[in-house]
């Protein structure tokens, strides 16, 4: 090869390299330029969701994310405001009989379903009592995931579910605007059973479209937002222009964008692709300054505090360690309850986003003041109780079931450590969530880490489902049987006065903590991070965001 050829080859190589670099640079610039600018300003709000929305059919709800979207589209008879106060929605007013068994609802006039061709040329129609009856009856059907809260409460519901009767006898329309619910037993607190969007009202015409359409591509309610588009990746809602209630917010289009990976979701928040997201526990310590603020008003770490705000909301949930009362005596259960340092556990597990709650009733419920303001951790007391128990440290071991949800494994490890300090040996057994539930129901679980998200908004139904002996094996997971508790719960059925009911509930809460069928640990607050130009962010106790009140500057 002569010098000329060599020079020629070097020159060719340089040209080729320059050409490749040019292509690379052009592609990068093109990609950057072509990427849609998704900055959502003004009246469009994009919320980053960590799970896909499979269905918007209220009776098929399977997770809180679906419920959060449904809460914007549908409304029930009543609901909760941001302070967890009961508010009338489709029921304008209601009255209860003196025996607390018959509830009469007057349906609000002038409320229309979201416009859709299914209603014919008028595109909509007014909500009537028959819609309420139809919806409640469907909620009580076999396939309904929300029937559990009402099936044993409403007259004729069990027979209906078993296919013995065609219609639920306890659901009656007595006038186009009057609907009556008859109960099996007195319940002055029944109204607090139906505040969740699980008990939403929908039109029969929409359901008649079939399972492939209703909940999948169509969802028609009366709420502040109506469905525009739904896929596995996003749900787009737009403000209902004919919404019956005056709202303060200015969000015109609300988009739920599914980004399952926590890190990617946070990155998309930084990239302004989404404007708001819930802070998962996995990111809490990276985003929230644990040393400052409180679970309800968290302080963000730099650089997040420059462009974002955060808020924490108390929702009706409790994380606990369930103890099988048939396998453990009361002293052993008390010893376990007293030996667990809830304050430390909550700080570690929730990265400062949880509130210590030693009782079964989460704070913030219907004016209820818990009997426990702080941890009941008492190591000496635990040792004394252990001595009184039948537990033999030389040969006994407690098997604690943990699973993949709710930081269960981490809780289990900490509990194992706390109990070892008083001489109780704990063996952790890791199973999948559904297997743990299966073992609990069969009574095979000795101890288990679990959590509850309540659909009720007053203490009475919570105490009833968790501690009444008639609720063994579910939801009385711990097989707790105490006549004193049963009697107290039955007495709650006769008390119409809220203050008196709360006072008795407090006594029963103390009884539950003292008998320790479960070690109640903490309430997890829902932390939300959002852009600084967004205000009026609020969630109610059912963990439902109130998007209709959100204002964007």
């Amino acid at each position, binding site marked *: 090869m002569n010098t000329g050829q060599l020079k020629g080859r070097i020159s060719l190589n340089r040209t080729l390299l320059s050409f490749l670099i040019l292509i690379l640079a052009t592609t990068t610039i093109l990609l950057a330029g072509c*990427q849609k600018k998704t900055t959502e300003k003004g009246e469009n709000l994009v919320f980053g969701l960590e799970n896909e929305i*499979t269905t918007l059919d209220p009776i098929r709800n399977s997770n809180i994310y679906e419920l959060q979207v449904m809460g914007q589209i549908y409304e029930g008879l009543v609901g909760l405001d941001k302070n967890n106060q009961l508010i009338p929605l489709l029921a304008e007013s209601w009255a209860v009989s003196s025996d607390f068994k018959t509830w009469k609802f007057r349906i609000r006039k002038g409320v229309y379903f979201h416009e859709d061709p299914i209603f014919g040329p008028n595109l909509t129609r007014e909500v009537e009592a028959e819609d309420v009856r139809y919806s409640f009856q469907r909620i009580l059907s076999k396939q309904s*995931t929300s029937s559990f809260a009402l099936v044993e409460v409403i007259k004729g519901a069990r027979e209906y579910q078993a296919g013995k009767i065609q219609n639920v006898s306890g659901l009656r329309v007595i006038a186009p605007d009057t609907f009556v619910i008859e109960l099996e037993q007195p319940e002055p607190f029944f109204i607090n059973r139906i505040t969740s969007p699980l008990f939403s009202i929908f039109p029969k015409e929409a359901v008649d479209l079939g399972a492939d359409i209703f909940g999948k591509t169509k969802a028609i309610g009366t709420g502040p937002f109506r469905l525009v588009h739904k896929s*596995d990746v996003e749900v787009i809602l737009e403000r209902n222009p004919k919404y019956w209630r005056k709202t303060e917010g200015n969000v015109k289009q609300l988009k739920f964008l599914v980004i399952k*990976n926590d890190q*990617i979701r946070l990155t*998309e928040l930084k990239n302004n692709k989404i404007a708001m997201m819930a802070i998962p526990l996995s990111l809490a310590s990276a985003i929230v300054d644990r040393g400052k603020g409180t679970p309800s008003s968290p302080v963000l770490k730099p650089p997040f505090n420059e462009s974002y705000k955060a808020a924490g909301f108390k929702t009706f949930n409790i994380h606990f360690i369930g103890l099988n009362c048939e396998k453990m005596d009361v002293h052993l259960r008390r010893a376990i309850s007293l030996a667990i340092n809830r304050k430390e556990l909550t700080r570690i597990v929730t990265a400062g986003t949880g509130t210590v709650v030693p009782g079964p009733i989460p704070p913030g419920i219907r004016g209820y003041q818990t009997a426990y303001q702080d941890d009941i951790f008492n190591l000496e007391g635990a040792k004394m109780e252990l001595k009184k128990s039948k537990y033999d440290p030389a040969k006994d071991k407690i098997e604690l079931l943990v699973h993949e949800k709710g930081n269960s494994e981490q809780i289990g490890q900490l509990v194992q450590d706390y109990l070892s300090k008083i001489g109780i040996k704990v063996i952790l057994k890791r199973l999948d969530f559904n297997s743990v*539930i299966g073992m609990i129901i069969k009574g095979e679980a000795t101890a288990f880490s679990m959590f509850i998200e309540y659909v009720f908004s007053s203490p009475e139904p919570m105490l009833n489902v968790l501690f009444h002996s008639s609720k063994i094996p*579910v939801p009385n997971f711990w097989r707790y049987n105490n006549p004193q508790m049963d009697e107290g719960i039955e007495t709650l059925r006769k008390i119409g006065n809220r203050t008196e009911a709360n006072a008795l509930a407090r006594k029963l809460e103390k009884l539950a903590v003292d008998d320790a069928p479960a070690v109640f640990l903490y309430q997890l607050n829902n932390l939300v991070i959002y852009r600084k130009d967004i205000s009026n962010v609020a969630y109610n106790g059912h963990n439902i965001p109130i998007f209709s009140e959100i204002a964007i500057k």
Partner: protein
Amino acid sequence: MNRAIASVLQGISLLVGIATLTFLLFNIIPGDPARIMLGPNASEESVQLLRTELGTDRPLWEQYKLHLSKLLELNLGRSIIDERVVSGEIADKFTTTLKVGLSGLTIALIISYALNLLVFYVPAASSLLIITRFGVVTPTFFSGVTAALIFGVFLPVVPLSGYGSSESTIFTLALPAFVTGLYPIAVMTGILREKIQEALNSLYVHSAFSLGFSRFHIFHAVILRTVAVSWLAGWVNLLSIVFVATLIVEVIFSIPGVGPLLVKSIQQKDYPMLQGIVIVNACFFISLSWISEALFRILDPRIRQHAET
């Protein structure tokens, strides 16, 4: 002809075996579909009613018979969780998975070609080929998240999310496809490099150089022509690996494909959906093996001759 009939029979027996195995595995996995559907708070009475409705309380052989007879009618049924038509749902999701997977493989094809061409012109650039080896040693879930962070934080030129949404563009597919293509990029670049080096030592390439052909012509008309079969064979063999990687990528980038559907069906014990996914996947892989076999026979005369003899 006999070979074709044998292949079809083999495929059918494989499908029946897979259907049986899926059924058995499903019944071994702990968890009661009715309980999962209604949640831990539902009473045993309600759960039992739903079990009867779903037929999950019937004897195992009876359930198996029912599933097999439905399968013979080519009826995959409906989801027990939300009554979606299984075949429609899988077809929809499978199309997405195919798009992502094939995009990844196309990227791999282009990059492996471009890199080898570059190294052919500039041998000093061969260090670039080593970088591609990362695609082999890094698991997809790790490379996926890492790529998302790099392109999300430091080089935000492609979107990280939104594939399948109303704002979906070709750019929303870019990153998932690239991550899916990382492994095939490494393998195919390696295969091509090796074959090119073998060819470079051969007499016919030396002759081509001495005859004064341009490098471009030698690369394409002489070398690539002879190594193309091995290179494309590698590409076809990678399809099944890429398919699995795609399922992971879909979960990371929230792409509505078969991956997330599979995970959800297992979690919810949605048997009709799970069985549908397994059967469709099996059919896909069986057809893939037939296609690749036929393709090689067309492309490589040696295989054709061997089969004929």
